[in-house]
């Protein structure tokens, strides 16, 4: 019993940006030093991740208290991780950030691997975002990136199998334990199943296929158009809608609201985001059309949508 009291280092999970970025649930014990966790749809309960990808952005920002916070994003085949490096980071991490930032601004391609703490926060409007706080990071070559991709795919596939296999079992700790579900997944699965409800795994499969293409050096597949940005929508507490079409309408409006930088949001991004939430392309296309018809959204340029204000 004493041993369970001592604080053990949390494992780092290899994870794709899509699995992490879609999370809208976190958990923290009430003790001051209790670790906090983000719970993904697949039921991964993660305090620390090991992620890699192309460093797309790393910019200083002045904060209210006068210190400088570096915000960045790294892209893997499935999407983008957002991270920040502030005063709380270790000397070595800040030193590295200072070295990398001008390189990124200068357009130098950098593959970065990082071990980071997970974080989830909610804006005043209720939108939920994930982010990372890197503890240690380093530049890697494409071979190490490919190795990271394979390991991450393997681990993600295992989690998907555990998730799918567990669907027949009641989401309680006792039932899952009795059902021989891998012990490191049990708590996360209970929370995930109760929070996210039914989820669609298909886009994870697509992410994995593309990641494996890259790991195998099939560059044409890897250089396909970049994945669309996927944002998290906070869980609606609204009732179940049998055909889901009104829910879809709300989701689409919410996506546009969040992603619109002034010129609207492009069609593909909307479709990708809708499919990430389990709506097929045809249903989403139809809904975009009907939203447009009813005058909720308009199309200032072909294929770009904005909310009618």
């Amino acid at each position, binding site marked *: 019993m004493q041993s369970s009291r001592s604080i053990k280092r949390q*494992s780092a999970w290899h994870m794709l940006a899509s699995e992490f970025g879609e999370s809208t649930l976190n958990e923290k014990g009430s003790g001051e030093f209790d670790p906090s966790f983000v719970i993904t749809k697949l039921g991964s309960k993660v305090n620390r991740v090991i992620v890699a990808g192309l460093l797309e952005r790393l910019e200083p920002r002045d904060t209210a208290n006068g210190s400088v916070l570096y915000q960045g994003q790294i892209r893997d085949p499935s999407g983008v991780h957002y991270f920040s490096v502030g005063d709380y980071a270790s000397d070595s991490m800040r030193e590295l950030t200072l070295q990398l930032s001008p390189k990124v601004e200068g357009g130098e391609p950098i593959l970065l691997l990082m071990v980071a703490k997970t974080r989830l926060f909610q804006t005043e409007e209720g939108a939920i975002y994930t982010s990372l706080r890197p503890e240690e990071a380093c530049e890697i070559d494409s071979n190490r990136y490919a190795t990271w991709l394979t390991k991450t795919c393997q681990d993600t596939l295992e989690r998907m199998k555990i998730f799918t296999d567990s669907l027949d079992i009641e989401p309680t700790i006792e039932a899952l334990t009795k059902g021989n579900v891998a012990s490191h997944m049990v708590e996360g699965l209970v929370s995930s199943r109760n929070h996210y409800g039914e989820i669609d795994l298909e886009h994870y499969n697509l992410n994995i296929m593309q990641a494996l293409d890259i790991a195998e050096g099939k560059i044409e597949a890897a250089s396909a158009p970049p994945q669309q940005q996927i944002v998290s929508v906070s869980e609606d507490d609204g009732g179940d809608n049998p055909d889901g079409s009104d829910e879809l309408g709300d989701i689409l409006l919410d996506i546009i609201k969040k992603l619109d930088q002034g010129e609207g949001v492009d069609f593909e991004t909307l479709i990708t985001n809708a499919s990430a939430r389990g709506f097929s392309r045809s249903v989403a296309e139809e809904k975009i059309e009907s939203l447009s018809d009813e005058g909720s959204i308009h199309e200032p340029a072909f294929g770009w949508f904005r909310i009618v204000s």
Partner: protein
Amino acid sequence: MSENKYDDHINAVLSECPNADREEVREAFAKYESEFYIPPQDALRSIIRRFKGDIAPSSGASSSSNQKSTVSKKVASLTELSDTDKDIEIEVEIISHNLREQTIRGEQKQIAFGLLEDNPWDEGAQRTRWEYKDWGPNSNISPGTVVRIEGASVNEYQGKRSLNINQSTRIAVLREGTRPVVTPGEPIDINSIPNDGYVCVVGRILSSRPDQIHRKDGSGSLDVVRGRMADESGTIGFLSWEPFDHEVGSLVKIDGAQVRTFRDTPELNFGRTTKVELYHDSNFADAESLMEQNIVTISQLRDGSRDVEAIVQITEWTKRSFVRDGQEKFLWSGQIADPSGKCRMSAWEELPINESDLPVTVKVRGVRVRAWQGIPDITVDKADQVEILESTPWDGSIDLSNHVVEVPLTELVNGSSRVGISTQGVVASVREDCGIIMRCTQCRRVLRDGNCNQHGDDEGNQDVRLRLVIDDGMSTSSLLINKEATLNLLNTTEEKIKAEIDSDGQIEFVQRLRGKLLGRLVIASGRTIVDEQGAMILADKTELVEQDPGLISTEIRAQWGVQ
């Protein structure tokens, strides 16, 4: 639906609110259940509150004189309670929960008892532990759960306080338990016995001998019986505080034995409330085959074990002498090994072993295990505990002095300390104090600013080491790599490292190490120390695993059918 299905609950309400109308109470339960899907046990407390509220104002002073109106007392810690407190609300963690049949006023009733602790949310905080009795008993109390108890009362007996959880008490589960739940009377496997609590086991007695425990204050001694019992899953030692006359070889069922853990070794304690009875099962393994499995491997040795039997190979054996009370005494000690690993053995009597005979295979019996710095040490008190064998039961061609056992990281982290192992994991951290360190010239501790926390200022000896964390996705371990292995891994020399740090600085040096190591799969061989702080691997050999992502990718596609 039977008419009287709420009777027990209605009686509980009426005992708290004697003026309430039986029919009204019944209707209330029915309403909670049909309209709000609240089962009667969950509705109980709300209903009591309602009927108490109903009665109190209307019946005025006359009824309040014989029925004290109670106000719920909400406390954070058990220490805030006094002997007479009733209707308490507190959040606690249930430590143990044991069911028991008890005759109350001539009626057989099931009640539960156990231990609980306050401050359930504060991991490191001082917690107060009390016993409790659950008269419900509530089905949602289980070990490890954190619950809010509403409506408990303090019971004081001979100066000792405990908590009474009454039938009307409401239990709200705030965090589900993760400890195994042990049903009474339901035997569990010996190898799954937890480190504390009450258990029921069925096993065969392998040994039994009377012993005496001398009270520390010198006020006499107690007669006890010590022994070992086994089932097919494992063996465990026992200590009976009551007369115990079952013979070696008999099969017994033991209900309500208390588990106590000495160092890392659990032991069963039989006391006044423990039920021991003969058990009949013609299929149960016989004593002889159980005796055989009583033989443990080195990887299974635990600090504090007694009556251990093992077959090991002695690979080094030396005699040492020391002086105690002006007399020269001798101690023999050395390295031993079996295919599961290596450790040490010490003997207080001379064994018939010559250094030229090594390695020698022996069977040891009835020995004890101590651990020093995490490494198990088999202690031989009498020479007749050791029997020299002609040959090894395993493939004799294995060279055990250089034998390394591959063990998954998670197994190492959750096991006891081991020697002669190899494991692998991904480098999840390269600590900032990697590289050159200074060690105390007297004790080899790492100096901080030229200062040893044991021996004060010290000029120190220079050493090289890496301090990493490796991770397999489930468990993590510190990995300390010694000088030779570090220089091999980095393909460099001590001088080059020193020069690099002197010219570029420690941060830049560590950052370059991360560039080489972070996220890489590494294989490390050496020994482990596992304690409350977690696991630590002391490696004398490490290598980075070269991986071919294209190949792995093809394997993944084949394994998972991803095309």
